[in-house]
């Protein structure tokens, strides 16, 4: 087997007094679609931040494709959708995407921007300032921005937030296509149903630790829900 797309070994993260992750270890092979599940405050966002290199682990290490996440090559293959949108409100959608396409050195940027805008159904609003967008429209643009440079590893933190039924379907289709293209995806979501549809594998984080690492095909949605809820029994954060 190749070198894993992602290797997290013994990662802990704390913010002063507050603990966010406690010796988390797992690996993800290229092409896997992994859902990270857990309660509010469990540490999902922190885990994704540590993986993307936004946040440095207090302990332990992360490797992307066998090397440091801060490697230029790795960063070019990474897409992040986070709780923040990474967009400039005072620029139009088009200008935002143009900016990112230059930064990420996207070949044939014009067409690529067109494609992603069409994918998220925002083409007709591309000349409007992002500040005037509705919440769902902003989220769509965030998705477009993340997919723009055809990344190999996607870290998606609650990407369905604010999307309407139709857009959720659209994103599911988009993500399935990404998976077919062999891309590696890590997704956090509170929607177990969608997680079950999309992913091969799931991790449940509880109290800042991984308490379950299983394959979707071996578990029914109800089983996953049960795992999720049992893990949380009596949990009241740290």
């Amino acid at each position, binding site marked *: 087997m190749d070198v894993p797309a992602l290797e997290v070994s013994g990662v802990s993260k704390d913010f002063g007094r507050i603990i966010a992750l406690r010796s988390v270890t797992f690996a993800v092979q290229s092409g896997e679609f992994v859902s990270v599940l857990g309660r509010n405050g469990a540490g999902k966002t922190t885990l994704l931040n540590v993986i993307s*290199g936004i*946040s440095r682990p207090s302990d332990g290490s992360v490797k992307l494709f066998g090397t440091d996440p801060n490697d230029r090559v790795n960063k070019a293959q*990474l897409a992040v959708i*986070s709780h923040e949108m990474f967009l*400039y409100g*005072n620029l139009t959608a088009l*200008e935002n995407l143009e900016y990112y396409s230059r*930064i*990420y050195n996207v070949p044939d940027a014009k067409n690529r921007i067109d494609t992603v805008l069409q994918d998220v159904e925002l083409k007709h609003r591309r000349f409007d300032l992002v500040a005037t967008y509705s919440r769902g429209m902003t989220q769509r643009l965030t998705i477009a921005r993340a997919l723009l440079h055809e990344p190999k590893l996607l870290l998606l933190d609650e990407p369905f937030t604010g999307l309407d039924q139709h857009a959720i379907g659209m994103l599911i289709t988009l993500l399935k296509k990404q998976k077919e293209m062999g891309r590696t995806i890590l997704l956090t979501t509170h929607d177990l149903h969608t997680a079950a549809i999309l992913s091969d594998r799931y991790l449940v984080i509880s109290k800042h630790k991984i308490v379950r690492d299983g394959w979707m095909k071996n578990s029914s949605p109800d089983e996953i829900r049960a795992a999720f809820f049992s893990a949380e029994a009596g949990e009241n954060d740290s």
Partner: protein
Amino acid sequence: MMQTAIAILKKDLRMEFRSKESILAMWIFSLLIFVIFNFTFEVSRLVMLEIAPGLLWVAFVFSGMFGLNQSFSLEKENGNLRAMALMPVDGGQIYVGKFLSVTIIMLMFEALIFPIFIIFYDLQLSLGMFKLVPVLLAGTIGFTSLGTILSAVAVHTRNQQILLSLLLWPLVSPIIIWSVTLTGMILSNQVTEAFYPLLLRVGAFDVIFFTLSYMLFDFVLED
């Protein structure tokens, strides 16, 4: 190679000049700075002339602070600073982009302030005044090269604006002081042989500060 820096520069300038009113606002602001100074210092013309170079640079520094704060508030807004940390580019490139945009805006400000300054002080325009160009450039670059990296540091704190002043002003003060001296020489038409060595010294510090910041910017972005 420079593509990143240019992309950032373009984006910043585009946002700054989204509407043409911005430049008008800047112009009026610079006018106001002088009105404020002139009115609060109810002093004789002679005294006024003596403090003129200082006033000019105080005006530059304060408008520069506005520019720096504005530029980095923008990046903070939707987590864009974090987005920068994720970019597959050298931190130095990002630094150059922000540095250029801040510098251009500040130079523009100076270009607007200067004519007003000339008029208000009824200064004689002469060929010797062209010597001001390298002085303004050198002083401004010193201010912005440090200001850019320190803004990126201060933006992570709660009291961003005050902390930026605390960090930047002491560090940049030699450059400002020298620039005032140089400006004073030119305005009073007393360019001595000390002029060029001093200018060179400012230039040398510009180079040092710029290079250092260029190399360190990666660490500022990263967590």
